[in-house]
């Protein structure tokens, strides 16, 4: 049994069958990549996992509990954090404040009214946020406005914010999309380090094969809403079905 079990999940948008009978099992403490050509349903699948979409059929179990019918914040509190394709951070706030918010969410839950305390005097939160910024090599950006940072820094901040919640499963949606080569390599190193050092499962959607093959221990290939193959990276590379899906029949 994996930590995340997707069974027969289907999702239809009007006449378009975006997902049809998707089965997926992500094992604990591995890096699992989901790849596929454009329109394969990767993002739809991800949205079904985090509560943004509700699948028409099938089940999604996380650690033995169903996530279906729960709101995004409830699913997050179960231990699933998500990194977006374009970094979603609190642009108007400082880097430090950005990092403190997930620390509060971890400690106080989805809603707790703490309107009288001074947030900078919450020692445990401040220390945790500072340590996490240190881990992300961002300690010097403490008071910077989050929106004014580079794309790579925003991405690192977002990953750090997700980690501050100590999730058991980290979902990444094309984390290196639109990044320069150097930034991409930095992100790969960061993710490798996270997966080695922490007790965490990573599921990643990615276009860039360089990223996929440097990180993934297991790969699922989606095409037209259904999984083609699920296998180890070395078997995926030369798989005829995968080549067909990506390059078209004649090229294969």
């Amino acid at each position, binding site marked *: 049994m994996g930590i995340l079990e997707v069974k027969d999940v289907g999702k239809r948008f009007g006449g378009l069958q975006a997902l049809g009978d998707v089965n997926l099992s992500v094992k604990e403490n591995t890096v699992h990549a989901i790849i596929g050509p454009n329109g394969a349903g990767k993002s739809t699948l991800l949205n079904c996992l985090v509560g943004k979409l509700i699948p028409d059929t099938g089940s999604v179990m996380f650690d033995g509990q169903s996530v279906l019918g729960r*709101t995004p*914040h409830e699913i997050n509190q179960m231990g699933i954090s998500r990194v977006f394709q374009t970094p979603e951070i609190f642009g108007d706030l400082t880097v430090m404040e950005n990092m403190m918010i997930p620390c509060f969410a971890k400690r106080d839950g*989805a*809603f707790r009214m703490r309107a009288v305390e*001074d947030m900078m005097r919450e020692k445990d939160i401040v220390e945790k946020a500072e340590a996490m910024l240190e881990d992300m090599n961002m300690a010097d950006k403490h008071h910077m406005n989050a929106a004014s940072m580079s794309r790579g820094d925003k991405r690192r901040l977002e990953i750090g914010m997700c980690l501050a919640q100590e999730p058991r499963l980290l979902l990444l949606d094309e984390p290196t999309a639109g990044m320069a080569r150097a930034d991409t390599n930095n992100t790969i190193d960061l993710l490798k380090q996270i997966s080695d050092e922490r007790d965490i499962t990573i599921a990643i959607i990615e276009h860039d094969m360089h990223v996929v093959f440097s990180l993934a221990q297991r790969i699922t290939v989606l095409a037209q809403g259904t999984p083609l193959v699920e296998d180890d990276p070395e078997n995926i590379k030369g798989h005829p079905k995968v080549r067909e899906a990506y390059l078209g029949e004649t090229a294969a």
Partner: protein
Amino acid sequence: MLGLTKKDLQLMLIVTGLTMLAPFILNPFPESSGMAQFNAGYPDLMQRFVIFGIFAIGFNLLFGLTGYLSFGHAAFLGVGSYGAIWMMKLVSLNVIPAIFMGVIVAGIFSVAVGYICLRRSGIYFSILTLAIAQMSYALAYSVLTPITGGETGLQIKSTDRPLLSNLAEGETGRANLFGMDMRQSFELSIGDWLFTFNVGYYIAAVVMLIAFYVSIRIFRSPFGLMLRAIKSNQTRMSYTGLNPRPHTLAAFVISGMYAGLAGGLLVAMDTQVGPERMFWTASGEVVLMTILGGVGTLIGPVLGAGVIKYMENILSKINKDVLHEWFAFMPDGLEDFIVFLVYPFIGKGWHLTLGILFMLVVIFLPGGLVEGGQRIGKWIKNRRKAKDTGASTEPAE
């Protein structure tokens, strides 16, 4: 001290100083001088400064922190006023229970309104709040006349016999604080200056200082951080395991209670309410105050409230005769021409001046008057710095 940082404490002390010394500060011109009409240090207006300051502080807690623009906040002010006046008519003429009642009634009403309106955000939220406020106005104006007094509103009458009072037969009750009449004033005249210290004003001012202090604490609290997070990015908020709904509802209710507090205080000062207090222009006014002063700043809303109430009361009193007096030194034709030019902006035309001021602020100072102050502060600092470095290089020459 007081759980505030040094900077916040400074601000708190400045505001305390200004409100306590307001009778002096607002009366800078001698009584017999022509400028005396610009004096704002009379009780009625000073009370309005601080009460609408409270209203704007509360509005800013919602709009400044969460970014939800309520266009129906006057409804809470009105509901608070009605609650307070009934408390005075029925239970006690002491202002404290009346003000409490205003806060509680407005709080309960805002829970219901917030529950409905916060299902939508952005423009839809604004329209929903506006709709509810206009419905409340219509109800108060006509359908609920037995409770609200309809068009004429409610006053304390000589027939009212509050439970906890010992009024003589036929005596009209007066709002008081443990026997101190709200309208009681102490006048101090120094030379040609006359300063009025009014009981009602000082009570309202103390309440405003408490309200201001609470707002600083909320701004600096984890809850305040969450509210700013909602304004910044609701998607990230949800995907960080935080539920935006109860946060916004709590902010909405706190803000509604501030409005109720302001409504209760208004009643405590002049012991009357009318439905026009809930009209949409009153809701728009608090939006203007907050934006004019500086959205999301601590002191901005108070400044904005002050400026607008000053213009409403002082500018509107200037008439044609006063203008002719001012420009009497000019040749006749020119005098008439200047008066003709200035006239649209004064008296009933004060809205025109307000509109121009508002446009200028929004275009050139998006951060409101507070940003203007900060820019001036920076400019002075830079000049001083330039002077210092200039002075230090001099000997070398």
